[in-house]
Every structure is written in structure tokens, then in C-alpha cells.
């Protein structure tokens, strides 16, 4: 029985990050500051729902990033795409008067287009993903600055401004902010896709052995392009949420979001070499980073120290996942 549990532990890809999340949750509870009334501040409903709200943007981006990384790719453009989408959202709803639906469609399409260009250049242009998405990261940011004339655009409500329905992004249901529901919905849709659908299986296959996938009759280029399109789409979705929450579209936002999101994916046990990884793990990774920032914030730990600790956590998480400190020179 003990062996079976151990076996399961070593074989399932998502269990380790999820256990890491549970462990950190318990630690955070123990070390949480206590209010004068004796309640544990970390466990307060408001605090927990606040954590979820804070991680939902990075979380949504990380879902797309996971798909890309499983194919052994990388998408550095997500932060810029978020900024572009946020900027388009603000201008669409304020200056161009596109209305709610059309604004959102335009913003999402910008992400789809960016992802499609990434995918086409990587697949058919045979340029490395790192380089293509680095170029997109620069280019999309530039385009966002061009649209906004380098200023941020505030979103106001009323006649000749944003419609009331746009406030949906800042509402809560049962005390849980709306963006959290979007994050949960996106997570469920894509984890079902990865686990149950053909396209999910193909994504793993491409990451595991691209040439074998091609010879097995998979349309590798299209499948890979699809993952970049999803990544762009989800970054754009996060951009809309970003704009709605801050009541502004700022072309300078979202800087280094790609790195936070890669960190979450890696902490979640997805291998940068491709072929391996789960969305469950990524979600655990996102929550681990969120809880860590939260508990450190509650204790008044400054940003500088938080960043150093985050760096250490990334390395520690991967070391734990690999299960050893040995470097396999010829390991086969």
C-alpha cells in the first residue's frame, strides 16, 4: 500500500505542485498575522478572494503559456499583448464608441492575430519561438503605444463614455470577484481540452517528439499555431480584465508578465523541454506565487525581499520536482 502511494506520487505529474500548494496554504495559515479579535487574517474570506482576484490575470495568461510550453515552445509576447488589448479596450469603449461587445471582440482579435502571426512565423518560417515572440513582444508594445500616443486612457462611465454593462468585470458574485470566475472557467475549459480532447493529445505529442508526430500524420504546424493563438487570445482576455479593473488602458502595463507566467508554469511542473505538464500544476503554481506574495505582504515584507524569495522558490520547486540534485551526464 505504501509503495502504491509512493508510486502514484512519483508518477503523477500534477500531484507535487498541488501538494506544494496545500503545504504553503497550511504554512501561511500558521504564520498568518492574527487580528486583535483573534481571527487569522490570512484565512479571512476577503483576503482569500483578494488573492484569487490578484492572481486571475496571470492565471489566465499562464493557461495559454502552459499549452505553448508543452509543445516545447515559449511565448514572450503575452505581457505586450495584454497591454495592447487593454489599450484597445479603453479606446474602443471610450474614443471609438464601439460598445461593449464589439470592443471586447476587437481586443480579443488583437490577441488572436498576434498569436497567429507568432505561430505562422514559428511553424512555416522555421524561426525559433524565443525570437519570434521576442519580436512580437517588442512590436505589440510599440503598436499599443502608437494607438495610445504613449499615454494611458482612462475609462469613465456615462453619456458618451463606457456603458454600465462594462462594470461587470468589477462586480462580485457571492463575494467572489468576476475575474476569478473567468479564471476558473478558462482553467476548466482548457484542462478538459488537454485531458479529453484530440487537440490536447496532439499538443503533448508535438512537445514529446515533433518528428515522430509529423510522421504519425499530425499536422504539426497547424496544431502548434493553435497553441499560440490560444495563448494570444487568453493574454488579450487578461488585458480586458486588466483595463476594466484599473478603469484605464495603459500601453505600459503588463511588463514582465510573461516571466511571472513562465515561473508559474515551471513551478507547476511543466517541462520547458516539452511533452510534459498539466494545467492543474500550473494553477497550483499560480496560487503558490499568489499566496506567497500575500502572506509576505500581510507581514509588511518589502517588494525587494519578495522578489528574492520568489527567485529561490522557482529553483526550489523545480529541484523538488526533478526529485534529485544529481545531474545526469549520460542519463538515458
Amino acid at each position: 500500500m505504501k509503495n502504491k502511494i509512493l508510486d502514484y506520487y512519483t508518477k503523477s505529474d500534477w500531484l507535487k505542485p498541488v501538494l506544494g500548494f496545500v503545504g504553503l496554504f497550511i504554512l501561511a495559515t500558521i504564520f498568518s498575522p492574527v487580528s486583535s479579535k483573534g481571527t487569522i487574517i490570512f484565512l479571512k474570506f476577503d483576503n482569500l478572494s483578494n488573492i484569487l482576484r490578484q492572481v486571475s490575470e496571470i492565471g489566465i495568461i499562464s493557461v495559454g503559456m502552459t499549452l505553448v510550453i508543452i509543445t516545447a515552445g515559449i511565448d514572450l509576447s503575452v505581457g505586450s499583448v495584454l497591454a495592447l488589448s487593454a489599450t484597445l479596450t479603453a479606446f474602443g469603449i471610450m474614443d471609438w464608441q464601439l460598445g461593449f461587445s464589439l470592443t471586447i471582440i476587437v481586443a480579443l482579435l488583437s490577441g488572436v492575430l498576434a498569436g497567429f502571426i507568432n505561430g505562422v512565423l514559428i511553424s512555416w518560417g522555421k524561426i525559433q519561438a524565443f525570437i519570434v515572440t521576442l519580436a512580437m513582444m517588442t512590436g505589440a508594445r510599440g503598436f499599443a503605444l502608437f494607438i495610445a500616443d504613449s499615454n494611458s486612457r482612462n475609462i469613465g462611465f456615462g453619456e458618451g463614455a463606457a456603458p454600465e454593462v462594462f462594470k461587470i468585470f468589477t462586480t462580485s458574485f457571492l463575494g467572489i470577484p468576476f475575474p476569478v470566475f473567468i479564471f476558473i472557467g478558462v482553467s476548466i475549459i482548457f484542462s478538459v481540452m488537454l485531458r479529453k480532447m484530440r487537440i490536447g493529445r496532439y499538443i503533448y505529442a508535438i512537445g514529446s517528439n515533433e518528428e515522430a508526430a509529423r510522421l504519425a500524420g499530425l499536422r504539426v504546424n497547424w496544431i502548434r499555431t493553435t497553441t499560440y493563438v490560444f495563448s494570444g487570445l487568453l493574454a488579450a482576455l487578461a488585458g480586458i480584465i486588466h483595463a476594466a479593473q484599473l478603469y484605464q488602458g495603459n500601453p505600459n502595463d503588463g511588463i514582465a508578465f510573461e516571466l511571472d507566467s513562465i515561473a508559474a508554469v515551471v513551478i507547476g511542473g511543466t517541462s520547458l523541454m516539452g511533452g510534459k505538464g498539466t494545467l492543474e500544476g500550473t494553477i497550483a503554481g499560480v496560487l503558490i506565487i499568489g499566496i506567497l506574495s500575500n502572506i509576505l505582504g500581510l507581514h509588511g515584507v518589502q517588494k525587494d525581499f519578495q522578489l528574492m524569495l520568489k527567485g529561490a522558490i522557482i529553483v526550489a520547486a523545480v529541484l523538488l520536482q526533478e526529485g534529485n540534485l544529481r545531474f545526469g551526464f549520460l542519463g538515458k
Partner: protein
Amino acid sequence: MSLLEFQKISKSFSGVEVLHNISFQLEKGNVIALIGENGAGKSTLMKILCGILDDYQGKVLINGNEVRFNNPREAEKAGIAIIHQELNLVNDLNVAENIYLGHEPVSRFGFVNFDKIYSETKKLLTEFDFPFSVKTKVRDLPIGWQQMVEIAKALGIKAEIIVMDEPTSALSESEIQFLFKQIKLLKESGKTIIYISHRMKEIFEIADEVVVLRDGKYIGKYNIHEVDQNFLVQKMVGKEIKTSPNKSKLIQKEQLLSLKSVIVNDNKKRFLTDISFELKRGEVIGIAGLLGAGRTELLKFLYGSYQQNYAGEIEFQNKRFIPSSPSRSIQNRIVYLSEDRKNEGIFPELSNLKNSSISVLPSLSSFGFIKSELELDTVTTMTDELNVRMESIHQHISHLSGGNQQKVLLSRVLLIKPDLLLLDEPTRGIDVGAKQEIYDLIEKLKAEGMGILFTSSEIPELLLVSDRILVLSEGKHTALLDTNQTDSREILQYACGGAA
């Protein structure tokens, strides 16, 4: 005192014992063949000897002293080198850099002493009559010479014991003879060679002694002059294998594939010339040729794996056929099994189930969702039929032995229900028992009316399996022979480009 001794070696992987109490001794200056079916434990035992695996029970003794290597470098220092089946060379470094990789002589300021590397390498390679510059990139060498570089590398670290894991699997006949000459030289200079191979003929040609393993157990060590092939095969499999073919007659006459004067050009060079043949349903055409003759290229071209220009006529099922892409070929029920399992076959991170079903998922799903029960049923029916030995269908394919991985890959292509089967070296690097199973399978598929193109670098195997044999030499079609009216000598002559 013996040079090398194994004492009660046992080793388990996640609870499964793969080596069980193995004990034997080897003397200096011999060539010892190590044989056994796939999964018998040969590779695992050698990995222990070479420091790749360091957690095992039992002892390894060299000259009577116990050693326990924590990594390959320690084993190298003790004079043990391994030449893997898949060569371990860095393609973009040159010959000399590869030979000294990891132990480059350095000058006082920490710079690599390239003069010394080049002169030492030249000295090492004179014995081999190496026809290239030591500054040639390994990528540009023929595979046979790459192997020589590996051997030179072993000599460069002054190895006393050299382990060769299936060294001939990628070599042509002439290259094999060349390798054997080198092995004899090594033996004369007092080196001990542990030679892992599935090819009986080679073992009788080169070995002094033979050690047999079966299911992780030591079966025995025999003087090669006191045993014969049947005896060894029986020791390996523990049961009799039938060696005589029982070829079924052609039942159907319907034409499946025809090529007329097909010429295929790469951008610059022409790599297939004047290929013409007709393949009927229920027929096996074997493709013979030396290394680089274009056997793999012909199969991959027909599969649509290259998008090259070609001239000539191709008909498949009496319709004009243009090879365009693997996915299109699969729709036409043309399938290809690669010779290179590791790089072009398996998905190492995925389970046996997922490896098997990948090409037929559209028929196993609705609205993009995979019907998991249907998938499991379909795949297990096929893997049972092919007699794949595995712990579980959900186990990663990388845990299987070569022969069983090959069977899973066969199940992948057979699930497509092909009409035309392109098999590229299907028996490469797999054991006698699994080979026989593949021959039997080919017989069965033939009877079901498939047309099969089949390559092999072993001519006896081609004679055993094929109805006719197409011989290629440097991409050129040199002969199309009836198996019943030809022999190895004639095939080899055509393969070398000459007429019989």
C-alpha cells in the same frame, strides 16, 4: 585472477527486478559476446559497469579490487569505455574535438591546446587508415566512420575494457568487416571487448566467448568453439524457434503500387534514380542496398515525408499518386514505420496507449473528444495480437525494451488498417524472438492482402521475408530480383553497383 568479475549483481527499477544475482568473470584480451533477448538485462548490466547506474546490489571487481563508479567519468578513469548503439558524438564538433571532449589538454592559461589535440588524434587514427581530416565535422562523416571515431575516443582515454552495444546495427557489410578488423587489432593489443549483438553470424565471427542472459538472470558462459547457433538461441529464449520460412504463395494479383522511371531530386543532388517496380497486393518487396544507397529515402519519399520534386509516374491503386505529406498518405492508407525509433518513432513522455492510438484518434473521437473506452479497447486488441510485453498500457513507452517499443509502433501503423506498408528496418536492434514474431506478422499481413515494402541491411533477412528484392546502389535502381532465383552474393554485387 580475472580482469573483471561481477558478483551477485541485482538491480531493480521501481520495484521490478531487472537483474537477478548475476555472477561471472571475464579474462583479459578476449572478445566476449553478451547476448540475450531484449529486456534480458544486457544494457542494464553494462550501464552498471560504465557508471551510468550506481545503485545496485552486489559487487563489480576489476583485477580483484571492488569498484563502484558513481558516474561514467569514474569508469573511464578506471579504463572502461562504452560505445552506445546510438552514437554519442557532438555533430557540430570536429573529429579531434570529439575524441578529446571532456578531457582536453589545456595550456597554462586554461586555453585548449589544439595543436596537441590534432597531433594526438592523427596518431590515434593512423591505425584506422582514417581517410578524412581530423578537422572534419562529425556531421559530415559517413556513419561507419563515426563509429570509428567512437572507438578512437575509447582508445584516447586508454580504455582497457571496451563495451560495444550493437555496433553494427547501422553499418553496411563492408563497414562491418572493417570494424571486425579493428576489433581484432584491439584484441591483439590486449584490450578486452564486450560485444553486445543480436546477430549470430557476427558473434561466431568475432567472439572468443559468449555470455548468455535471460530475463535478468545469468544463463552461462560458453567457449564459442564448443557451441552452435541453435544452442545459443535456445539458451536465449528458453524454447525452440523455427527458423525455416513458410512463405505463402501470392494469392491476389491485383496491382497496388507502380513506379515508372521515378527520379527524385534534392535541391542540388539527385538522390533516387530510375526506380521502377510494381507491387501487388499480398506481395513483399525487399529493398537491399549498402548504407546510403537510398533505401530509407525511397520509403520516406513514397510516404510524402519530403516535399521534393520528382519525375516519372507513380500509381497507387490504379490512380495517379503524388506523395505530398504523411497525413495525406495515412488518409490513403499508406503507412511508414521508421528505422529510427528514438528520433522518429516514440513519444517518450507518453504512455503505450497514447503512443499507439495517435494516428487514428479522429476515428476514436466525436466532436473532438476522445472516447477513452473505445480507444482502450481498440489499442489493447491490437497490442494483444502483437503480443506486446508490458506492465501496463498506461506505462510510459520509454520503459519498454526495444523490441516491445517496436511492437507498439507497429500497432500504431496497423491500427490505420493500411493497404501499403512501408517498413524501414523493422527488426533493427531487436532480439531473435521478436524478429521471428515480426516475420510471422509480415506473413500474416501479406495473406490479408497488404502490399509491403521492407528494407533491411541483413541480406539473409531480405531473402527470408521478401518475394522479390529491389537492389539500390547510390540511389540508383540496379536490379529487381526474384527471391527464389537469387542469393546473397548476387544481391551484394548489385548493391555495390556492379552487374553479376
